[in-house]
């Protein structure tokens, strides 16, 4: 029997003034609603110039090759799960964001920045499937990423994503775990695990190991039992492994990638590699 979801209340709708076909529920998000109030034409143009100003081979080839055939639509979960609404197709997202920015050379109003940010942040997962369905293999995700960077430079990012990005800026991990908290958690889990596996160790900052495991920060924060489970597997498998607690570089979930905050992205990756080099690890294992 098909279960029909019940609509509890009629939601207010947002109809884009730029693309009347774009009809969505109204949402409240201070990351978008408040931040666009601070924009000025100069700021917008400057951010545009920083991202799209210099012509690069990839931007040029992607924009100048797309023949607007719509074949990429078939790939997109957003398009397929919204009754094939044309405004969800990958090329439509590029049309409503990058084409519009490029056409107007960055001279756009805050209202359009709102529309663009909503499209690129809340209606695309950067999954890359569309590129595998496009007959030219156009890297649509790359373009969406650039538009996200444009929005990020302007600070127009959904609140939750921006907060997560700030956590990384401040602590290099997703959930504001301090170094002492982290060490404490790992040692606690070692102790817990010992009841089940004799002599269980969670080796910390050990030199010359085979494997370093970098968890997601959510594991020591919310899924603590992962730590002792993984430790047991390593120990029973006889792997010479360790976890790292120094320099705050241990969370492998590089979320700033989704806001295209290049600076923080780089700090994270660099930190992870530097720690690996310091302890001369041969392999890195990351939680995915």
């Amino acid at each position, binding site marked *: 029997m098909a279960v029909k979801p019940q609509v509890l209340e009629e939601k207010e709708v947002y109809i884009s003034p730029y693309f009347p*076909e774009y009809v969505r529920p109204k949402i409240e998000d201070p990351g978008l609603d408040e931040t666009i109030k601070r924009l000025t034409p100069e700021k917008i143009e400057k951010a545009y110039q920083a991202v799209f100003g210099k*012509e*690069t*081979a*990839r931007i*040029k*080839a*992607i924009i*100048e*090759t*797309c*023949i*607007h*055939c*719509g*074949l990429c*639509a*078939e*790939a997109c979960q957003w*398009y397929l799960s919204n009754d*094939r609404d*044309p*405004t969800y*197709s990958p*090329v*439509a997202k590029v*049309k409503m964001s990058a084409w519009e920015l490029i056409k107007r050379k960055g001279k756009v109003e805050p209202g359009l920045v709102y529309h663009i940010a909503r499209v690129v942040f809340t209606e695309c997962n950067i999954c890359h499937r569309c*590129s*595998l*369905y*496009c*007959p*030219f*293999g*156009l*890297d649509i995700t790359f373009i969406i990423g650039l538009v996200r960077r444009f929005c990020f430079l302007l600070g127009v990012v959904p609140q939750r994503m921006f907060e997560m990005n700030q956590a990384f800026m401040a602590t290099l991990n997703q959930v504001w775990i301090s170094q002492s908290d982290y060490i404490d958690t790992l040692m606690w889990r070692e102790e817990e695990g010992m009841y089940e596996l004799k002599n269980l160790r969670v080796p910390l900052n050990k030199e010359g190991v085979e494997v370093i495991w970098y968890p997601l920060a959510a594991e020591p924060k919310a899924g603590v039992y992962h730590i002792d489970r993984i430790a047991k597997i390593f120990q029973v498998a006889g792997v010479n492994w360790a976890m790292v607690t120094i320099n705050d570089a241990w969370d492998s979930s590089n979320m700033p990638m989704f806001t295209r905050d290049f600076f923080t992205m780089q700090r994270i990756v660099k930190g992870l590699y530097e720690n690996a080099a310091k302890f001369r690890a041969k392999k890195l294992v990351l939680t995915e």
Partner: protein
Amino acid sequence: MGFLESVALYSFLRGPMVWLAFIIFIFGSIYRIYTLINLAKKEKVVLPFINIKAAIKSYLHWLIPFASRNWRLKPYFTIFTFLFHTGLIFVPIFLYAHNALWYESWGISWWTLPEIVADVWTIFVIIGCIFFIGRRIFDPTVRFVTNYADFIFVFICLFTFLTGFLAHYQWVLPYKAMLNLHILFGEIMLIAIPFTRLTHMYYFFFTRAWMASQAASWKTKDW
């Protein structure tokens, strides 16, 4: 009608304009490819990343009908686009009438298509164009991302093939007028290739190479 049929127009289109069209087409294309490669050299990650083997596999899968998943998902589209594109490239090169012109001017000629094959293939190209126009009008997904230029590209192809065909059978307009129109559209098409999104003709090989190389690095395939 007088001007359209005139020998003056014919000699202009068959003389300087042919030269101009081919020169712009050839040098424009070289320029476009050259500038793109040069730009790519300035990006740190593009050229060193290219995986030729993956690229060639990807070309083959997308240049053979139904060899990629999306070609299989869209069978009608695939049939039309392959008839259209193969016709667009092979019919003018191997057409008897075109060969005769090359022979007349340069004394060179090569293998030609039998008349019936050329005619049928031309009709397929015309049907393909109508199919593309229909999609752009009636498929909401395609309509949303279509602009005037997209129609113009298809119409340039449509008119070139239609006028060539009609001239051959001397239908609708007097032969000379139709032929002049045909040559004009053919030349517009050649000139348009380097300057419009019709450059996809060669950018195809670059954009595919890039995506194929990325897909290979993720240990997946892009077809």
